[in-house]
């Protein structure tokens, strides 16, 4: 396809309390269905979207965290998580859910989609994106 653009979805907000996280996920799924090159970035409180073990039973909202693990099926293989944001919140990569994709170039081997990057690298990723959608 000729008109494939690099879309970067930037997630900065906690998963609950606002609709941003869920809306972002919906838009990501729509974008991926149109076979664009999609990458996700999680920084600031957005990293909480990927922290394991949500319990939404008291919130009266659906637990949509499992949907993040389906993103590999949508050929989304680039999930950037900012190291500084994790550290500032006392979190490490081990606190995050597993997100995987199957690498077509490597006999469909299952690989992790999550890439921990520094703040500086994140800035470069943003500079390199054709389109940035911020949530």
């Amino acid at each position, binding site marked *: 396809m000729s008109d494939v653009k690099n879309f970067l979805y930037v997630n900065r907000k906690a998963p609950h309390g606002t609709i941003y996280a869920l809306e972002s996920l919906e838009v990501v799924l729509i974008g991926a269905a149109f076979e664009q090159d999609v990458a996700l970035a999680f920084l600031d409180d957005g990293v909480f979207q990927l922290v394991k073990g949500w319990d939404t039973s008291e919130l009266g909202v659906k637990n949509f965290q499992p949907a993040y693990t*389906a993103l590999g099926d*949508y050929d989304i293989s680039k999930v950037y998580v900012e190291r500084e944001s994790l550290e500032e919140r006392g979190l490490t990569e081990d606190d995050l859910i597993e997100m995987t994709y199957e690498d077509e170039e490597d006999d469909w081997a299952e690989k992790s989609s999550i890439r921990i990057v520094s703040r500086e690298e994140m800035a470069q990723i943003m500079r390199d994106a054709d389109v940035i959608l911020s949530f």
Partner: protein
Amino acid sequence: MSGFYEVNGKQVPHDEEGYITNLSDWSKELAEVIAKQEGIDMTDEHWEVVNFLREYYDEYQIAPAIRVLVKAMKKKFGPEKGNNKYLYELFPYGPAKQACKIAGLPKPTGCV
């Protein structure tokens, strides 16, 4: 137009496109009613897809787009079932859309 499906004398509400409003209202009988309205005679092959969609939704909390459904079906049932032609023969008006409706799931995201 939104309205109701009639199942065993009970009314099950649906939206203007025919997707049921409360996912917990689903039953096999309801699936048959929706299928009939869609002009589909449910066979074992239809049920296989519908059940597969329900399992997928259970695990991931989303109704998969057609491309994803094809890929996942291929993985589970092999290429003779995991392809567009097979699925469109079963659900001529769009496998993701029609099968999801029958399976009592929301309309797949990105299905316009």
